[in-house]
């Protein structure tokens, strides 16, 4: 391609950088931001998920203080946590995301955010960060997004290099978007699938070709905000608690690689999808009581739930093999959380 898919500048001393464009440039048109975030990479993390010690990579906040997850990250060990700390801004703000890479090159792609090519974080169209770079962008639309590394993405995102990205309307949290519904309780779920067979590979696995079996994904561990099924029904960073009559905004980030179906129990009543992929729907879409929503990788949904009756309601998420030649989806796993209405 004309914009540089030519194999690029592979500096001596770093092997296996096929197709990468390593750089550490200044930010074009740099201005003083309204808000800024610092993210350092780590590749030596461990997180216990449902009793399994999972090697993880990710972004921690500048200074190496470790991530806080999406309000969760309880299992985060040395290095940092899965998922990485959220980025939360207001619509209209100019944002700086300062990335400093450690141990290997990485990028940050703000998924669903549409900056110019240079700030989009896709190495094959711009550069891969070897050192540091400040991504500059302006938040044009309130909604639910996420960010992730876009270098050897198939591996780096699987290893945990992602975090939530929320844009609030100019007035701040409490309203989903300008002209949209207000909410009393907010929950953010990043729902992911993990194949432990992929978690002992180098950062540049098969980047120059060769077979690292990165086409063959068989997740055997599932998590919400990095927590396994042993915790997702009880831990307050995932399980939702609200009073009867309150409105709940559930921001659902589909962070996995295989199809997911979220099943809402009938007791929660009607659920409305008010936005998808960071864009308000032209009309809120009804998920009738007891209904479900089938999702594919990297979608985001904003669910408005207004439960009427006290009780504890299970929300079941099922995972399906991505291979479906016959069209039939084969379930390969599940995880559950709860909504408790007092």
């Amino acid at each position, binding site marked *: 391609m004309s914009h540089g898919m030519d194999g690029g500048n592979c500096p001596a001393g770093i092997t296996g950088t096929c197709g990468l464009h390593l750089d550490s440039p200044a930010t074009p048109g740099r201005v003083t931001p309204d808000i800024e975030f610092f993210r350092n990479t780590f590749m030596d993390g461990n997180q216990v998920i449902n009793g399994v010690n999972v090697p993880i990579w990710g972004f921690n906040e500048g200074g190496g203080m470790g991530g806080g997850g999406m309000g969760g990250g309880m299992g985060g060990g040395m290095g940092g946590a899965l998922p990485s700390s959220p980025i939360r801004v207001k619509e209209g703000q100019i944002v700086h995301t300062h990335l400093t890479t450690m141990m290997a090159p990485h990028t940050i792609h703000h998924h669903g955010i*549409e900056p110019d090519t240079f700030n989009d974080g896709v190495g094959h*169209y711009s550069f891969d960060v070897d050192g540091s770079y400040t991504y500059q962008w302006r938040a044009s639309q309130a909604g639910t997004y996420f960010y992730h590394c876009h270098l050897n993405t198939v591996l780096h995102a699987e290893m945990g290099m992602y975090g939530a990205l929320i844009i609030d309307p100019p007035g701040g949290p409490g309203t989903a978007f300008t002209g949209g519904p207000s909410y009393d309780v907010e929950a953010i779920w990043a729902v992911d699938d993990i194949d432990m067979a992929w978690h002992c590979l180098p950062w540049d696995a098969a980047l120059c070709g060769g077979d690292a079996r990165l086409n063959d994904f068989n997740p055997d561990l599932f998590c919400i905000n990095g927590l396994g099924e042993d915790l997702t029904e009880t831990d307050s960073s995932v399980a939702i608690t609200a009073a009867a009559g309150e409105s709940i905004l559930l921001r659902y980030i589909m962070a996995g690689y295989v199809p997911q179906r979220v099943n809402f129990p009938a007791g929660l009543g009607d659920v409305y999808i008010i936005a998808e992929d960071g864009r308000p729907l032209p009309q809120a879409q009804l998920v009738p009581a007891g209904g479900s929503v089938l999702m594919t990788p990297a979608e985001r949904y904003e669910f408005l739930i207004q439960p009427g009756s006290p009780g504890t309601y299970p929300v079941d998420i099922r995972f399906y093999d991505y291979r479906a*030649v016959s069209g039939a989806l084969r379930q390969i796993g599940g995880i559950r959380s709860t909504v408790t209405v007092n």
Partner: protein
Amino acid sequence: MKRRAFLQRTVRGSGVLFAGGLGLLSWAPRSVAATIQVALGVHAGYAPMVDGTSAYMVTFSGGSSVEFPGPTIVCREDDLVSISIQNPLSINAVFHVGRTAIRHTVGAGSSVNFDFEAPPAGTYLYYDDQNSGVNRSMGLHGTLVVMPAGSDNRSFSDGPTFVRQYKWLLASVDPAWGEHLANSGVAAIGGIDPDSFSPRYFTINGRSFDQTDEPNTHIKGLVGDATLIRLLNAGGMVNSPHFHGNHVEIVSLNGSNSSGARKKKDIVSMFPLDCRDVLLPMATPPDAWPPASGAQHFPMHCHAEMSQTAGGGFYPHGMHASITIGEAPTSEPQLD
């Protein structure tokens, strides 16, 4: 699509011919319906993959060897489509148009001719529906585009207007299945377990990553050139195309057209057999600061990231194509 481009396409001949003295344009506005004649063959053989290997496939073809994917058929909604298929292979083949009752079998070692009235305007997958999706996943598929009568810039009569249109036919290839047929004969296709599918190559219009840098697959346009993209999933996996640069509007979902306010997405879910038409506004990237100037280059790639590999690695040599905002194409897309 520009009129001249379409002429070039038909003269070049990709298996689609137009009879009856009605002119060469198959769907540009014309006062009368036409009969669209299409000659197809069924062929087995090796197709090149992006890493230099090749995979044995079975395909429909407008020529004398494998063609992956099969040729695109374009017609108008009141046209008659007249198809002849020659099948020299030792297995029956089926031509089925998804979401319709159109289904014809071509016996092993024989040929067949049949006609059908064009279905309602929209995007259709034609494919061999035998063996629970195995035949389709082996490569027996292609695209049927039905344009509305009297319009060359809408995909249905009251749909949104576009400046140009593209087709992105998604597929996934398991070369082990192909080797089984190469070694045991194509008749072994009936014994393949659809649940044994383990794809290693992932394509758009039969191409992967930098191979997509050609006029039918690399999407280009000036700012404001609304662009219709017809997405089809002929493969055997659940894909999740992700658009960088612009959200797209969902125009049609498996024949269900959206005439009013349309949902905006950066992910377009594509289950096997899905046909989804989306409108790319080709707008200046909305979150750029300072506002973007000059041509902007973005990927569209599937976010079921296994699809970004070839032969088990080689990221991102998979289901990936480019979008250039702010630069007109030097050759107009032909829907091939």
